[in-house]
Structure formats: structure tokens, C-alpha cells
């Protein structure tokens, strides 16, 4: 193909958008809306996943040391705990601090336990966090067998339940996103097809005048690319602005510190590239698929 012909295709492709004014607009707004929905749910799913991660991170193993163990041995135990490759952090809570915390949790009823200081019934305690929360159980079981360890507490049932929930949430999220992405592709391709079917006669005429298939296809390729690409600009802008506003709202105004949203920065780029990519790809794909049906003249 000659260069000037490529130039002609680019020109024709973009002019087709204005030529078919209303139809292009309808098509692009469908693309825009569908991508917007997809984007919203993508942001939602990513953040839910993030929050699930944060929550999982809270999981910890409480290791109780036997009563009356020497300070040196306790330090050795600390070293051993830190040596586990799966362990991220180890915090030591002396039994005095433990009792203090225990009493604090009773607020104004703390006076009930005044007598306990003399013969502190608690043990020294380590709080262990694993790098990957899923390894908690395995690590806990191994700690249990270390010397001087009296017992290990890691809320076995609670953790199981938590992981069931977070896994479920993640799976549902992925399921939704995949389903939505296919739906979006289908809807976009469908609208673009409808606009092209309306031009089947034009395609037939072009072929009868001697145009090759690729000569006819190129402008449609450009048109699909532009419609999908342009159709993704508005939703991308809306999503980014909306998300920035949401972050501000949640973290500054409402002070909902427990809602730990993903930061705007890498997300913005990823989202933009992804949505524009989907838009452009499906634009081209839908366009090519429907032109093909009318090329057999």
C-alpha cells in the first residue's frame, strides 16, 4: 500500500466519525458508559482486595512463654522466632505490660484486679506476624514445639473464617470484573456493529466500484480505533477526578481512617492505559468483525 493511500485511510476514517454524526455519537457514548461502569468496578475490586490484604495483615500469633523462664532463655527464644524465614516481625510484651493492658481493657472496673499485681498470673508474651498471613497456621504449629513455649494462640477459627471471607470476596470480585469486561466488550462491539450494518450498502458499493477488501477495511479500522479510544477519554477523566475526590472525602473530611484506599498515583496510569486499551481494541475488533460480513460482494 502506498503512503498516500494510508494518509487517505486515516483521513477517511476520522471523517467517517463526523459524517455519521449522530450514530458515532451514540456509539461512543455507549463505549464511554460501558467503560465507566467497568472502571468503577475495577476501582472497587482493587480497593476491596487492598482492604482485605490490610485486614489479613492484622492476623498475629501470640506466643506465651512458660512461667519462671530466665531472661537469657527468653532472648534466645526471641532470636529463634526471628530466624523463621516466614516471620516478618516479633514484638515482646513482658508480663507486667500484659497485665497493664489487661486491666486497661476493663476501664473503670480495673479495680477488681488490684490484687493480681503481686502474683501476676500472666506469662511473658511474643506477638509474631508472618510475611504472608496464609502461613500463620503453619508457623504457629512450628513455634509450639520450641522450648520454653507454654502455648500459642492464633485465633484458629477466626483466621479460617477470615480467609474464607477474603478469598470469597476476592473471587467474587474477579468474577465480577471478568464478567463485566466481557459484557463491556460485547456491548461495545454490538453498538459499533449496529452503526456499521447501517452502512452495508456503502460497503457493497465500494466493492462494486473495485475497492479491495483492505482498502475498505482500513478506514473502518481507524474509525473503530478512534471511536473506542475517544470513547474512553471521558470515563477515564471522570473516574480519575471522582476517585481523587473520594480519597479526599474519605481520608480528610469523613476521617474514615479504617477505609484504607489505594493511592491515586500508580492506579491512575494503570486504569487509563487499561480502559483506553480495551476501548481501542474492542472498537477495532467490533468494527472489523462487522465489516467482514459485508465484504463478500
Amino acid at each position: 500500500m502506498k503512503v498516500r493511500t494510508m494518509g487517505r485511510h486515516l483521513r477517511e476514517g476520522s471523517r467517517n466519525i463526523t459524517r455519521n454524526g449522530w450514530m458515532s455519537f451514540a456509539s461512543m457514548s455507549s463505549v464511554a458508559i460501558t467503560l465507566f461502569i467497568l472502571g468503577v468496578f475495577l476501582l472497587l475490586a482493587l480497593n476491596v482486595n487492598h482492604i482485605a490484604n490490610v485486614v489479613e495483615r492484622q492476623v498475629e500469633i501470640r506466643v506465651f512463654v512458660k512461667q519462671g523462664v530466665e531472661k537469657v532463655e527468653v532472648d534466645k527464644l526471641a532470636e529463634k522466632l526471628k530466624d523463621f524465614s516466614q516471620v516478618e516481625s516479633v514484638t515482646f510484651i513482658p508480663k507486667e505490660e500484659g497485665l497493664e493492658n489487661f486491666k486497661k481493657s476493663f476501664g473503670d472496673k480495673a479495680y477488681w484486679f488490684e490484687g493480681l499485681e503481686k502474683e501476676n498470673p500472666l506469662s511473658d508474651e511474643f506477638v509474631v506476624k508472618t510475611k504472608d498471613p496464609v502461613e500463620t497456621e503453619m508457623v504457629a504449629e512450628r513455634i509450639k514445639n520450641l522450648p520454653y513455649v507454654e502455648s500459642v494462640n492464633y485465633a484458629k477459627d477466626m483466621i479460617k473464617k477470615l480467609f474464607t471471607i477474603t478469598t470469597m470476596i476476592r473471587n467474587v470480585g474477579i468474577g465480577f470484573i471478568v464478567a463485566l469486561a466481557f459484557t463491556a466488550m460485547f456491548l461495545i462491539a454490538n453498538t459499533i456493529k449496529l452503526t456499521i450494518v447501517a452502512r452495508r450498502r456503502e460497503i457493497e458499493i465500494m466493492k462494486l466500484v473495485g475497492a479491495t477488501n483492505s482498502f475498505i477495511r482500513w478506514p473502518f479500522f481507524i474509525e473503530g480505533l478512534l471511536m473506542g479510544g475517544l470513547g474512553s477519554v471521558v470515563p477515564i477523566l471522570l473516574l480519575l477526578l471522582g476517585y481523587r475526590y473520594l480519597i479526599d472525602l474519605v481520608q480528610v473530611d469523613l476521617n474514615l481512617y479504617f477505609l484504607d484506599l489505594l493511592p491515586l498515583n500508580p492506579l491512575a496510569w494503570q486504569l487509563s492505559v487499561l480502559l483506553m486499551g480495551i476501548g481501542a481494541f474492542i472498537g477495532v475488533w467490533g468494527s472489523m468483525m462487522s465489516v467482514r460480513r459485508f465484504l463478500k460482494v
Partner: protein
Amino acid sequence: MIEMLDVWKTYPNGTNALEGINVKIEKGEFVYVVGPSGAGKSTFIKLMYREEKPTKGTILLNGFNISKLKERQIPKVRRSIGVVFQDYKLLPKMNVYENVAFAMEVVEATKKQTKPRVLEMLELVKLKNKLRSYPSELSGGEQQRVSIARALVNSPGTIIADEPTGNLDPETSWEIMRIFEEINLRGTTVVMATHNREIVNTLRKRVIAIEGGRIARDQQRGEYGYEG
């Protein structure tokens, strides 16, 4: 050169449009195709540039068997023929200039070649004042003339015209006929389906009369008429 050997055409709905056509049109000939409405003239013509495929039989165009043509080669064949369609077949979203220029873009002509040639053709069919009009803004005859200009613009070796004067007044019809005669004198094959008795009887050429899907008469310098 166009040759048809025992060509039959049955449309998908069962209509037998052509039944055993045998005909040979030499390069440089001028042929009228006449016959009553629904006789099969358009079908006969559509087979030549492969808008329709024959159900049976062989069609040779400049030696190539176009009934066995590969999909990819069809555009080449069509470019060697200029067609004036009975229903014009203009691109509705392109203006007059663009419609004619489209046929040149298809063969990847340069812009420098295209512009003067398109304007020349539109001058020829007296539409230079309608360059920027869209097909929906033209009268029937004007649309027909755009179709004629498009068929001529690439100076094809063969011109196939399906009732090119059906919506033209006698004066304009004669102007078009003079153009056809001139390019025919310069060696272009012209095949023209027509109902215009006056033209056929005045500008005497070979006449192929089709009736009920069969060639009823094939006569050099013949008159209009097909019954027997």
C-alpha cells in the same frame, strides 16, 4: 473481449433470469442490450463485472474465466470495467466530487492526477456546478450523470452501462451517447442496456435482444425491438 458460454442464472428465490446464454463481444465493439422489463438485461450485465455469479456456464473476460475467479482477484477485474448502475449506486455520505474521486482513490492515483481528471469528467456530464452536493440533493438525472462520470473517470477498457439515459431528457441523453460513441471510437468496448428506441434506431450498432432470459436476436446495426 467478453464471452459467455451456455450461461444460466437462477436467483436464490428460484427465478430463472437467464437460460443458456451464448454470446461473444469483441474488444472495441458497441453493443445495445434491449428487451422488455424483467427480461434479464441487468442480470446479463451484472454477470460481466461479477456482481452476480452464474449458476452454470463459463464467462471469459479478456481471457480470464471470471466465474472461477478467486475472491482476491475480483477487484482487479472490476477496475478494468467502468459500470453505470441502473440504480446509480452513489455513496450517500460523499459529495459529487468525492464520489467520482473515489473510483480513482481505489486505484491509488495521486491527488495531482485525481483532481483535474475528476473535474474534467464532471464538466463532461455538466455537473461542475454541483461539486459539493450530496446525492440526496441531486435530481434523478443528475445522480445518473454522476454515476456515468464515475464509470468513465479511470478510462477503463470496457464500459458497461445499465440504462444510462433512463432518467435523462433527450438532449442530455444524446450528449451522453456522443461521449460513449467517442470513447468507443478510441477503442473502448461499450455494452449498454437501454429502452430508448430513438437512440438505438438512430445510432445503429450491434443489438442483442433478450427475452425471457434467452437471446432472441443478435444483429449488427440492428433496430430496437425484440419480438422475434
